[in-house]
């Protein structure tokens, strides 16, 4: 199953490291990363594969949100079908 992790917040050192470390711990494979900084705001999207991870996505998304909170970031993990549905005809 594919999912998307989004990270939005104030730019700081170690954001990518922290999120990707958590991915590795949970056996989540990162397939694509895009990040940008606009007026000091950091925005990153990660496309990930959950097929080797045995945790439910609802539990995972809570775990990532908590990890984000420690750095003051809005971190969300959602299944990827939503974005296809909304933005593709």
């Amino acid at each position: 199953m594919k999912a998307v992790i989004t990270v939005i917040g104030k730019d700081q050192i170690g954001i990518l490291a922290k999120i990707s470390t958590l991915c590795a711990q949970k056996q989540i494979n990162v397939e694509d990363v895009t990040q940008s900084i606009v007026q000091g705001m950091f925005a990153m999207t990660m496309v990930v594969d959950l097929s080797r991870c045995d945790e439910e996505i609802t539990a995972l998304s809570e775990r990532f949100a908590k990890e984000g909170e420690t750095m003051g970031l809005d971190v969300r993990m959602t299944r990827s079908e939503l974005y296809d549905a909304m933005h593709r005809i």
Partner: protein
Amino acid sequence: MLNTNDILETIRMISQENLDVRTVTMGISLLDCADEDPKRACEKIYRKITTKARDLVPVVERISSAYGIPVVNKRISVTPIAMILASARNPNPVDYAEALDRAAKEVGVNFIGGFSALVHKGFSAGDQELIHSIPEALAKTEFVCSSINIGSTKSGINMDAVKLMGSIVKQTAEATKDDQCMGAAKLVVFCNAPEDNPFMAGAFHGPGEPDCVIHVGVSGPGAVRAALAKEGKSCSIDKVAELIKRTAFKITRMGQLVGNLVSEELGVPFGIVDLSLAPTPAPGDSVANILEEIGLESCGSCGTTAALAMLNDAVKKGGVMASNHVGGLSGAFIPVSEDDGMINAVRRGALSLEKLEAMTAVCSVGIDMVVVPGDTSAAVISALIADEAAIGMVNSKTTAVRVIPAIGKKVGDELDFGGLLGYAPVMPISTWSPERFIGRGGRIPSPIQALKN
């Protein structure tokens, strides 16, 4: 390949612009619960609802969490209870309302609609009993919503029912006067009521629907307003309509996705998506604010009806492309107490009941969540219902009246219902008497528009 900007736009719409799926509503037929013995009928009703909807709330919550889509309400609509009452011997309709209430509580939904009767052409067995019991039923229950259809384009307007409903609305407010007259906020009087409406208080499960079905109502006024604020500041009205269409498409696709997933997981057919802009009292999540973003100093000014007509049409055009089956009310809602911008427009004296009536001719539903003085006569409320029903009947559209007579209060006072029902100032209403007109009774003949064959 997923596009980063698309992903971030979606996240922004959800986290900052109040985009959500407003309701996932399970429609359940109770036709097989009718019984000569009222007690047995109530048991069957409770058992059927709690069986069919047992997994509704947990499944919707799991999907909401996995896809990051907020789903605000989980609800149930049932067959109009008057149809079930018809075959019972000396039933007390309040017992049926209490059975619905217990079932709603058991499965964890926040409203159950269908304490209803369809009387647009006349009363049949069960109808009058149900209508007379509404004040007590809504006072004694927490989750039950009631709706009465008193007219249609095909049949005209049942003026006997209109007369009765003016008095019932007042009695319902009286019966709940210690609770902000809440009963009247859960009672709606329709013309051309849709049978697959997922929104409360008017949801019921029409007799032509399948045994069990999932309907979805989308929302998103905040997202539409934000899109206009970002890109539509000085463009022509054609571009404004285009921006609304594009946003409505995205909003509706989200609703369609949630509907498909819930339907698949519960093994229940997917009915319709209701393409609505449903506001909430949260700042920014307002249909009135969209009209102001289009260029009106305040909602209620001259130009409001034209801007709303364009908005309503663009929402439908964008939404219909995004959905397999469209139904329900589909259009922009203009409830006063549930829309921060409408509340402010009333407070500043820019929005009157007469302007709201004009607006209902070009958008979804009608005079909705409007608080009127407590001493408003039953005949005036009946006449307001008749006016709205006439707009619906002649224009072949749904119209409705959900007014709350604020018992013991006058213009300038406020009622606060809490939650999504919001709060509203008491609005002035014409006190010239329509008593003789309403007293005539009978039925307004169906208009020439009804003869389409």
